[in-house]
């Protein structure tokens, strides 16, 4: 039982990172109806920025905010250079564009920086544990969960209380009518990409701390987790994205620890099988996106 609780906390830590990634995917899907397969590249680019900063002697305290800033800027640049040009194209074209960005960013790092993995040091406290009664938990997981909770609360405030949040929700519900009301479509879309970039940046800090390295293909894994979690939760639903991320994280950790012997190595396969089952019984994901749920 103790082990299971530890697993769940560990899973929530991992799932929090997925939740932040998925929330970014859901925000973009809400306004543009675009499933952004380039989302992981925000972590690739900020990973290289982190590597460059470490090489000049920066510490994690300076690198962490840098990762967020680089992620936001990368998100805005990708919107400006690529997505803004296909805004009125079919969803298929937009989808292919996002794939194109994903491959292009990887290829550019291979060409101009090198295909080898660049390593940097993890923070010294990454493996520290603390005891809560009989349960031993990693400090890292607690930090991730706490930061995610604060980030989600801030996101709710932005969406509910600010004019930008209101415009984003209106645009997600009915883009044309929002424009008719005077909502500046460029500004809302840029804002959505900035928000999505900030969320990916916060997730990216923890992702990079844990990984301790970056490589041209580093974006694939976070992209898959983010997109999958958003799909599990019900595309377009922000609450669903968070729920999907947490569920994915907990499922991964619990299965890896509870599956017998060699089967534990098949965790990813089992997770995908579970997701397939979920979509057979609930094709819309965990949360049904009624109009009211969208962004």
């Amino acid at each position, binding site marked *: 039982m103790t082990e299971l609780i530890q697993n769940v906390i560990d899973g929530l830590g991992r799932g929090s990172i997925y939740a932040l990634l998925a929330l970014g995917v859901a925000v973009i899907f809400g306004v543009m109806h675009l499933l952004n397969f380039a989302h992981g590249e925000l972590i690739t680019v900020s990973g290289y920025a982190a590597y460059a900063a470490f090489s000049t002697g920066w510490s994690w305290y300076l690198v962490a905010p840098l990762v967020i800033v680089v992620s936001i800027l990368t998100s805005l640049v990708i919107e400006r250079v690529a997505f803004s040009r296909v805004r009125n194209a079919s969803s298929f074209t937009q989808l292919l564009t996002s794939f194109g960005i994903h491959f292009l960013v990887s290829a550019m790092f291979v060409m101009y920086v090198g295909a080898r993995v660049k390593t940097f040091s993890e923070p010294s406290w990454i493996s520290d544990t603390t005891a809560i009664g009989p349960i031993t938990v990693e400090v890292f997981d607690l930090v991730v969960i706490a930061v995610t909770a604060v980030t989600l609360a801030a996101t709710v405030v932005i969406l509910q209380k600010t004019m930008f949040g*209101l415009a984003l929700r209106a645009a997600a519900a009915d883009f044309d009518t929002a424009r008719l009301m005077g909502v500046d479509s460029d500004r809302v879309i840029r804002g959505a990409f900035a928000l999505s970039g900030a969320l990916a940046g916060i997730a990216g800090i923890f992702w990079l701390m844990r990984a301790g390295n970056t490589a041209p293909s580093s974006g694939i894994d976070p992209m898959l987790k983010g997109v999958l979690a958003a799909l599990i939760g019900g595309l377009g639903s922000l609450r669903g994205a968070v729920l999907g991320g947490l569920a994915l994280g907990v499922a991964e950790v619990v299965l890896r620890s509870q599956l017998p012997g060699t089967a534990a190595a098949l965790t990813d396969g089992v997770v995908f099988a579970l997701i397939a089952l979920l979509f057979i019984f609930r094709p819309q994901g965990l949360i049904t996106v009624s*109009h009211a749920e969208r962004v």
Partner: protein
Amino acid sequence: MLLEVNGLTTKYGSISALRDVSLSVGAGEVVGLIGPNGAGKTTLLGSIAGLLSPSDGSVEFEGNSVTGHAPDKMLKAGLALVPEHRRIFVDLTVAENLRIGGVTVPKSDRAGLLDEMAELFPVLRDKWDTPAGFLSGGEAQQLAIARALMSRPTLLMMDEPSLGLAPVLVDVVFDLIEHLRDQGRTLLVVEQNATRMLEVADRAYVLRSGSVVAEGSGADLRSRSDLFDTFVGGAE
């Protein structure tokens, strides 16, 4: 003239939904736009408001050319549209719908405008924090109009405000149009209910198959027997 439309042509693919349409609206006027289904009335409002791009012709507003400007620019210029089928944001509350309507006005003026709307539309005041999806058809139409008024438009365009409403609510909508007229607001209203529209309009245009076939004062047009099918709302 406040709004001057000259020779406007709008096409869907190769089909012209509007052909060489000209009309004008003066400050403080209530102008009706009537005609049967498919006459191009909604296309005309959409082309003025920037939702559709006209292929020919010009739109001038307060003396400036605004042809083909994006809807948000048109709104900032002072031209608001209450769209067909109301298109309120059903998942936002009544108050949030109104705040979105006021997105272009300075923040400091928004609270005052909200108070003004609460006074003008008492039915909305009681449902301030209700999601707009729970409103009845009549309430939703009033919200759509209030939302457009939040931008303090110089010209308010309405597309079929009485469409789909029970007769008693149709009265509410026309009473509201009269009230707005009495406040001195400038309105351009598309209506299928031609008889009622001609009663409240200073002037009106009759649109058929994408062209203006008649124009004149409400009383003039009502006496024109050749336009009878237009008044009973017959389809093309």
